[in-house]
C-alpha cells in the first residue's frame, strides 16, 4: 500500500521493470545524441581535418572563438538575429494580442490559422519565398518602385550592410505569428473581473495593459522568449539558402560556421568547439529566461 507522504510521486511500487520500458528509447537516445555530444566535446580539443591524424591542442579552438574576428562576428550576428527573432516579435506580439484581446472580434480562429501557418512551412521553402521577395527584380523592389521610392531599390541580400537585417526580418515575419497566438492564448485566460476593476479605477487602455495584461502573461512571455531566442541561435537553413553567409561573411552565424568549418574548410575541431559553445549558450539562455520567469512569478 502507498503511504500518504508519497502522493507527489507516481503511483505504483518501485519497479525494476521500468528500466525495461526505458531501455529501447534510451539506447537510441544515448547512441545518437548523448554519445555524439560527448564526442563533440572531445573533438573540440583537437586540431583535425577529418582525414589525417588529429592533434591535441587543448583549449585553442575555444580561444579562437574569442580571438578570431570571423567567429566573433558570427556570434555578434546571432545577437542581431535575436533582436529580430525574439525582441521585436515579443514586443509587437504583446501590442497586437492585447489589442485583439480587448475587443472580442469575430474571425479570430481564421486569423490564428493564417498567422500560424509560417511555422509549419519548411524553412527552406520560407527561404526560397523570401529570396524572391528580396531579389533585384523581386516584389520588395517592385513595391518600392510603385511607391515612387526607386532610390531605395537594391539587391537586398547582396548588400553588405542590409543582408543581415534582411535575413533577420524573415525571422520577425516567421516568429511574430507564433508569439501573438501564444500570448492571445494566455490573455484569454485572464479573468474579466480584473479588467472590470481596472476600468472602475479609471484606467485607460495603456494603464490596463501595464497593470493587468502584462503581469498576467509573464509565463507566456518567458515561453515565447525562450522559443524565439533559441530559434534565432539555431538559424541555419535560412542563412544557408538565402545568403550562404555572404556577402563576404556579413550574415555568417554560429550554426552556419559549424557546417562551414567542418564540411567546407576541414576544420573539424574548431567546428565542434563552435557547436559546443552554441549548445552551452542555448542551455544557459533557456535556463536564465526560465529562472527570471519563475522569480518574477514568485515576487
Amino acid at each position, binding site marked *: 500500500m502507498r503511504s500518504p507522504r508519497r502522493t507527489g510521486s507516481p503511483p505504483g511500487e*518501485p519497479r525494476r521493470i521500468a528500466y525495461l*520500458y*526505458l531501455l529501447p*528509447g534510451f539506447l537510441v537516445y544515448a547512441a*545518437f*545524441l*548523448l554519445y555524439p555530444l560527448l564526442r563533440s566535446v572531445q573533438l573540440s580539443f583537437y586540431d583535425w581535418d577529418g582525414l589525417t591524424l588529429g592533434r591535441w591542442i587543448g583549449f585553442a579552438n575555444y580561444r579562437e572563438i574569442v580571438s578570431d574576428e570571423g567567429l566573433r562576428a558570427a556570434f555578434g550576428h546571432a545577437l542581431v538575429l535575436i533582436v529580430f527573432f525574439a525582441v521585436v516579435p515579443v514586443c509587437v506580439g504583446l501590442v497586437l494580442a492585447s489589442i485583439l484581446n480587448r475587443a472580442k472580434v469575430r474571425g479570430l480562429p481564421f486569423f490564428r490559422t493564417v498567422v500560424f501557418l509560417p511555422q509549419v512551412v519548411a524553412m527552406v*521553402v520560407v527561404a526560397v519565398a523570401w529570396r524572391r521577395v528580396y531579389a533585384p527584380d523581386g516584389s520588395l523592389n517592385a513595391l518600392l518602385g510603385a511607391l515612387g521610392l526607386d532610390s531605395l531599390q537594391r539587391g537586398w541580400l547582396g548588400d553588405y550592410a542590409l543582408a543581415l537585417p534582411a535575413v533577420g526580418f524573415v525571422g520577425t515575419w516567421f516568429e511574430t505569428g507564433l508569439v501573438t497566438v501564444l500570448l492571445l492564448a494566455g490573455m484569454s485566460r485572464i479573468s474579466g473581473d480584473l479588467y472590470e476593476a481596472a476600468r472602475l479605477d479609471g484606467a485607460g487602455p495603456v494603464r490596463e495593459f501595464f497593470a493587468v495584461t502584462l503581469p498576467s502573461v509573464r509565463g507566456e512571455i518567458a515561453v515565447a522568449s525562450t522559443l524565439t531566442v533559441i530559434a534565432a541561435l539555431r538559424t541555419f537553413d535560412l542563412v544557408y539558402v538565402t545568403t550562404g553567409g555572404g556577402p563576404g561573411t556579413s550574415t555568417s552565424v554560429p550554426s552556419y560556421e559549424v557546417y562551414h568549418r567542418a564540411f567546407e574548410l576541414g576544420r573539424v575541431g574548431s567546428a565542434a568547439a563552435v557547436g559546443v559553445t*552554441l549548445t552551452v549558450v542555448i542551455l544557459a539562455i533557456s535556463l536564465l529566461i526560465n529562472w527570471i520567469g519563475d522569480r518574477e512569478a514568485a515576487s
Partner: protein
Amino acid sequence: MISRAEKSANYLILVVFAVFAITPILTVLQAAFGPSDAGGGGGFGNFADAWRIGHFGTYLRMSLAVSVSVVVVSVLLSILSGFAFGVMRFRGSGPLFYLFLLGIMMPSEAIVVPLYFDLRSLGLTDTFWAVALPQVAQSVAFGTFWMRAYFRSSSRALVEAARLDGASTRRLLWQILVPLARPAIVTMTVLVFMWTWNEFLIPLVMVTDENLRTAPLGLAFFQGQYTQGFTLLAAGAVIVATPVVVLYLFLQRHFIAGMLEGAVRE
C-alpha cells in the same frame, strides 16, 4: 465599452497582420500557378515540369520513408519510456529524466559533426539510417517528455483501479492508458512528422547520393542548379511544403497546442 472605432481598428489590424503573414507564401503560390518563364504551359504544367526536372518524386519518396519511420519508431519508444517515467517509481528516475530533457534543448549543430565522422568510419553515411536514426533520437527526447507529462496527468485513480483489478503492467499501458492517450499521441505524431519532414541540416550533412535527398534538401539543390527562372522553383517549393500544410489544415489544433505547450524543442 469598446467603441465602434476601436472595433474597426481591430479588424484593420487583423487584416493587415494576416496579409503580412501570408504574402510571401502567396507570392510563391502565384508564381507556381502563373505563366511559366521556362517556356512550358504554365499552371499545373509547372508542377509537372518541376516534378520531372527537379526529381521531386524521388525526394518526396525519401522524405515520406524517413518521416514515417521516424514517427512510428519514436512514438513507440516514447510511449514506453514516457510510461516508465510517468507511472512508475524507480531509482535514478530524476537524473535520467533530466538527461532526456537535455536532448530537447540540444541543437543538431552540437551532434552533427561527430555523428558524420563516426558514421562515416562505420560506412553508414549516405544511407537511409544516417538520416533517420539521429532524428529518432531527437524525437524520443521530445516524445518522452511529452508522454510523461500526459501519463502523469492521466487519472491516478484509473491506474490504481487497474492495479487492484490485477491488470498487468503491459495491459495497463496498452489496453487502458494508450487508448485514452490518443489525443496526446496524435499531437506528438504530427509534430514529429513536421519536424522530420522539414529537417535540413541532418540530411544535408549525412547524404550526398542524390537518390537519398529529402524534399527540403532537394529543393535547396534545385535552387542552386536551376537558375533560369522562378516558376519551377516556386512549383517545387509548393510541392515540398504541401504535405505538412495539408496536415496542418486538418489537424491545426494539434499543431498549435503541441507547439505552444510542448514547445521546448523547436
